């Protein structure tokens, strides 16, 4: 009981801070300096129609590289920790048979889901979406395949090869930016093209495709290693 009381006291303190923040909040009427710079210069400098994509891939590209690295570390540690101290020869579970509907439906849906994922990350510089969303959609296609056949073993080496290939190409594109354009991860190593067309914004579609493949591989390996209940 005393623990619950202390918890409520703590929450009341935080709640007071939040309430004072909420009641003194004045919404901005104009963009601040940073946002104004991005709004004015994205179209001419980067050539991407989606300003959020321009920030993520080019202006703050180094942060995104770090983010993808963190995700890679997370998926690696998940696989490592689950593999540690695994008892061999424990009870083999008999998998529950899946229905005909799920099997047939997945045959129909998995290619479409993969196609949607590819569409989302190729069009990341024009429409909402991009590498992270497209990668998650790719991973949900893998998830559907896992649901249909829980005993299916995904080739971990294939996922790892795809993941390291896209990561390496991402860094290589970034280093190319140092020599051919203004700096690391500069997208102007390719012509920026016309605003709003599919082949535009320099290297952004290429980089976002690589990010999408990498993120999709990382999420897939996370899902696969968490769902594998039996011994590999």
């Amino acid at each position, binding site marked *: 009981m005393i623990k619950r009381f202390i918890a409520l006291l703590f929450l009341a303190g935080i709640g007071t801070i939040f309430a004072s923040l909420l009641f003194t909040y004045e919404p901005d009427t104009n963009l601040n300096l940073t946002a104004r710079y991005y709004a004015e210069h994205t179209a001419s400098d980067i050539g991407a129609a989606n300003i959020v994509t321009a920030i993520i891939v080019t202006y703050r590209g180094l942060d995104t590289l770090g983010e993808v690295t963190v995700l890679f570390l997370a998926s690696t540690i998940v696989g490592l920790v689950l593999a540690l101290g695994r008892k061999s020869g*424990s009870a083999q*579970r008999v998998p529950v048979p899946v229905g005909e509907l799920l099997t047939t439906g997945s045959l129909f849906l998995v290619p479409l889901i993969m196609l949607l994922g590819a569409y989302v990350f190729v069009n990341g510089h024009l429409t*909402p*979406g991009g590498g992270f*969303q497209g990668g*998650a959609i790719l991973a*949900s296609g893998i998830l559907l395949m896992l649901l249909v056949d829980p005993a299916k073993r995904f080739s971990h080496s294939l996922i790892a090869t795809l993941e390291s290939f896209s990561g390496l190409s991402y860094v290589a594109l970034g280093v190319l930016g140092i020599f051919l354009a203004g700096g690391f991860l500069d997208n102007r190593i390719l012509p920026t093209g016309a605003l709003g067309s599919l082949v535009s914004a320099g290297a952004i579609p290429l980089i976002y495709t690589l990010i999408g493949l990498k993120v999709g591989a990382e999420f897939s390996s996370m*899902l696969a290693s*968490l*769902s594998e209940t039996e011994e590999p």
Partner: protein
Amino acid sequence: MTVLMTAMSIVFCSAMIGAALVAIHARNGQSLPIAILAAGLVSLFASVLFLILAAPDVAMTEAAIGSGLTTFLFFFVLARIRASAQSGTSHSGGEYD
């Protein structure tokens, strides 16, 4: 238009708070799958709210990752825990709930 948007955001916000309360409330025999699904529902309503707040990129991310993949991660771990509770190799008690 603005009135409609405000009304919609009020509806979604109250639904989110309700789902969040369901998700954390552990009394009267509520099962863990219901809590997981309620947390997924909070994420799904949050993605609609992001769309109302003019952030379509964030809305897509939240719908695909926060609401889709996270829910399945929880269910996979729950399935593993239940499997090792049923196999009985580890320990006596099956207090996963």
